[in-house]
């Protein structure tokens, strides 16, 4: 084996060595170009000022039972719903095997009366209807997305339509009984 390499090396003494150098130089060059591209690619990711606005505090004292509000968080709406006793029961009574994206209501709320979800349909990003009073809430009393017809229930879980996942529950914590910080 080593003999063959050696004998072919005798005909064209520098071929392997030169090939190796060419390849190695090209490879180092390619890595260099790749590294030089990184800052440009990363410059398109969220900037520091965008990230700095990443949390909001919301006062819940003015939301009566049965109503909901929209607040902006990271440029998207968050729905905060003050659920009625009936809505809580509806959310808790569903059998998990009936759900597209199975999750218990308990796993989606901090306090039963407050549902906090990102108001962006998990299909293609429309804002579902059902937050403002008078809007249709769909067939499951939660939200209805007008774009492609997804129905969400009182826990923000997808029940029917093209959306694959439940409405996302953002990171949040209750600061007091009537105020919450999202993000």
């Amino acid at each position, binding site marked *: 084996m080593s003999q063959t390499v050696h004998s072919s090396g005798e005909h064209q003494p520098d071929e392997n060595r030169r090939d190796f150098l060419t390849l190695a130089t090209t490879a180092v060059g390619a890595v260099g170009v790749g590294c030089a591209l990184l800052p440009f690619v990363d410059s398109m990711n969220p900037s520091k000022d965008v990230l700095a606005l990443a949390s909001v505090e919301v006062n819940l004292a003015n939301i009566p039972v049965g109503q909901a509000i929209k607040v902006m968080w990271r440029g998207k709406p968050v729905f905060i719903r003050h659920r009625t006793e009936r809505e809580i029961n509806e959310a808790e009574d569903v059998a998990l095997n009936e759900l597209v994206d199975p999750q218990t209501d308990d796993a989606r709320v901090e306090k039963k009366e407050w549902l906090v979800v990102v108001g962006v349909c998990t299909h*293609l*990003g429309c804002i579902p209807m059902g937050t403002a009073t008078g809007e249709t809430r769909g067939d499951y009393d939660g939200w209805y997305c*007008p774009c492609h017809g997804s129905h969400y229930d009182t826990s923000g879980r997808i029940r029917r339509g*093209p959306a694959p996942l439940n409405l996302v529950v953002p990171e949040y914590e209750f600061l007091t009984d009537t105020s919450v910080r999202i993000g």
Partner: protein
Amino acid sequence: MSAPQWNNKVVKWVDDRLPVISMLHHSAYEYPTPKNLSYMWNFGSLAGFVLVTMILTGIFLVMNYTPHTDMAFESVERIMRDVNYGWLIRYIHMNGASMFFIVVFIHIFRGLYYGSYKAPREMLWWIGILILLAMMATAFMGYVLPWGQMSFWGATVITNLFSAFPIIGDPLVTWLWGGFSVDNPTLNRFFSLHYLMPFVILGLVVLHVWALHTVRSNNPTGVEIKTPADAIPFHPYYTIKDLYGIGVFLIFFSVFVFFAPDFLGHPDNYIPANPLVTPPHIVPEWYFLPFYAILRSIDFTIFGIPAKLLGVLAMFASIVILFVIPWLDTSKVRSSKFRPVYKWFFWLFVIDTFILGYCGAKAPDDYFLGIPGLKVIVMGQLSTLYYFAHFLVVMPLVGKMERTKPLPASISESVMKEGANA
């Protein structure tokens, strides 16, 4: 094909140092063109004309446009109301996008009918598809710039398509947005890229024409140029014919610009973007409707791949599949003129794309043409099925089984025969 001798001393001096004049002479004057080209061959030059129109009007629009979420909508309204002839420049640009797609779609259907994608024109065809893809990206990003409701929600829906990809989906969408939703960073980068892309298209057009002039134009018979008698020089025969075509086209274009400038647009885009309210019915511009219908028609899961991802893949596949049709079409005959069976499938395919377009414009639960029991979603699924079957089943099978009509011995012979019959 020796370089021409120039009598003018200045021309000669330049040409000896940079043979740009010889090159232009070669490609726009003496280029041997089949002598039987029909008006279907006008659409390439028309597309080039619209591209230049779009670049020129775009440059002037940028002089008055502000790419910021707080000011974009108002700066467009200022162009419409206060800038001298701003309304004209914007309406030309706005409708020019639609004209570009009309012209290019006809150009593509022409290529499909006459087998212009078949050897040796595969590279020419591929570059054409790349131009179509670049046009779609450019049109999409341009539509976002006025920052109306449809701008915002169209951008949201389309960028969200990328979230369908497993693992990389969400970081990819955040990267595209430059934030956690479509917002100012998104608008800014779309503006930057919308200005860049036309020049990319221009570069691709140069390659497209280069490839065309290497393999020569196809023609209605699909028979190659065999003797000099089959061809005529591009100038003056086709320069004048292309100019005539541009004249006719400008009448059509002007009807929209001056009498129905908003006919092809959506009224909701005159409402400023509102991230908290989704319009009840989001529809893309008409030229995306067939692809949108394909995207939406996949509402089922196959092999555990979710519907959303399948829809996105099907939509991309509907264009990518065009790359391989030079090999899917097994027929030895180029032109459908001599393909009595395939011809019918071709027209079925054309109708199919119109049905897809109609389905894309309607809500999925509506009834197709008001026919009770026939939902738009079902019709969309059937036409999506035919769209792919046309390429994957009809093209290979019909090409093998069909008995084609006899081809003329040459372009000249076909011209003489048609002349005698007339």
